[in-house]
């Protein structure tokens, strides 16, 4: 039974919806035709995608950025619940306009100011929290209990304990593999080779996940073709 959401309303077909389904189906097939070999049909689909994405992105940016953040605060403050015009928004607007200096060689220096502002703001905001989220917390997560805990603490199963040991070993041996200031010989060499095995397991898991992801995309398109496009054929 197909999902109800996937089915078009064939009882009273909307011509625009049917046209949309046809366009989507033809473009889907055009894109998949690349699997046979590069061809003009695929090129048309590719160019359509790029052009439409750019145009759509521009309209969305205008509607969700420029209108509520610049035009409304200046000319229609009631629409964004402001008591009166807010001229402060002209400052970021000016900074944004300086980006366009890039197009004129004489004024290209202007674009460096907003870029400097973005880089400075981004770095300042990101460095402390990213360090905490991705290094300190992860290091803390690696230092898990490796033996029975003190009385009163929640009991750890054998599987948990083994998992904690394996995790610590994987982290240390993988780090050993990426440590290049010492020759990979003797015990250090053996540890780094074990690290390679852990890396291979991680890549294998990643590959398995990637297969599932790509197949899911194919399934999505096939669901569309089978449950939305194909019924149009036998309906007519």
């Amino acid at each position, binding site marked *: *039974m*197909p*999902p109800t*959401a*996937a089915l078009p309303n064939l009882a009273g077909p909307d011509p625009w919806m049917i046209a949309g389904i046809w366009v989507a189906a033809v473009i889907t097939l055009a894109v998949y035709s690349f*699997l*046979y070999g590069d061809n003009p049909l695929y090129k048309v689909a590719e160019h359509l995608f790029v052009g439409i*994405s750019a145009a*759509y*992105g521009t309209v*969305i*940016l205008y*509607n*969700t*950025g420029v*209108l*509520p*953040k610049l035009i*409304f605060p200046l000319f229609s403050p009631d*629409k*964004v*619940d402001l008591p009166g015009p807010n001229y402060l928004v002209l400052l970021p607007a000016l900074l944004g306009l300086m980006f366009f200096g890039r197009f004129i060689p004489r004024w290209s220096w202007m674009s460096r100011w907003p870029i400097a502002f973005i880089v400075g*703001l*981004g770095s300042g*905001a*990101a460095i402390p*929290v*990213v360090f*905490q*989220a*991705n290094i300190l*917390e*992860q290091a*803390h*997560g690696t230092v898990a209990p490796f033996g029975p805990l003190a009385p009163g603490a929640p009991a750890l199963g054998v599987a948990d304990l083994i998992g904690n040991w394996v995790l610590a070993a994987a982290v240390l041996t993988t780090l050993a593999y990426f440590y290049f200031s010492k020759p990979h010989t003797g015990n250090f060499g053996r540890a780094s080779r074990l690290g390679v095995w852990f890396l291979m397991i*991680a890549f294998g*898991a*990643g590959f398995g*996940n*990637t*297969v*599932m*992801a790509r*197949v*899911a*995309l*194919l*399934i*999505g*398109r*096939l*669901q569309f073709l*089978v449950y939305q496009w194909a019924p149009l054929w036998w309906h007519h």
Partner: protein
Amino acid sequence: MWDKLLHIDRRLIYALLFAVVLAPFLLQWKQPPQYINPWTQSLYDYIEKLPPGTPVLVSFDFDPAVKPELYPMAMAITRHLHRRNARVIGMTMLPSGVLMVDDVLNQTGEEAGKRRGEDWVNLGYKTGGLAVILGLGENLKRVFPTDAHLASTAPLPVLRGVRNYQDIGLLITISGTGMPGAWIAFAHQRYKVPVAVGTTSVQATDYYVYLRTGQIVGMLNGIAAAAEYEKLIGVPDQAMLGMPGVTACHLLMVLLVIVGNVAYFASRRHREEPTAEPPEPPTGEEV
């Protein structure tokens, strides 16, 4: 023969893959999930425990390119949120995600008899990335003065009492990009809002590390987790329908990997066999 197998036309493999994925649809093969991943279960349990009326911020950070993987989980999670009478605040960090949010919220809202503006809202897209995430920690209505339909957010009942992350019960990011990493670092780490992630299978390996440290409360990994979630809420939909195709394709891939490896080693052995005498060692006279 082994060499032929090693140099098989890739178009044949594509055709096989196409047939294997299509067959379950045509044969109406059903395969509900037999196992629920603990991280899928933990997100479900977390939402089950939310008191009715809790504001939940859902960032639909995906576009049509990954719709088949993420749309089913977005539908399942939102259905669950409506069932728990949560206040669903939808938004997106991708310009091309605006229609995805509208699609999911309109359909699930209609199914559950929920009203736009009262029970759910689509805040739409806002450019800025990091600035948006940090801004939501200060004042949500200043970041989103209007919703996706350019209506003022100030009078909306669904946002009553919601000023910033402190008033949000759960933040769910559904994304096929690195966006969950930003939500975890800036929204969770800085403002301590509970975060859950729904992601594509390609990205999932990046986020498992945050589960162990408790930085995220649950995670849905691709179409398989979406099918599990559909089973948990008892609403089978697109993910459960697609799972037989995934299974069939995985079986084909395993078969192809085995055949490829056997062919590789057999052809190597076959090439080594005719070398009856080892080549003469160099005498040094040529140097």
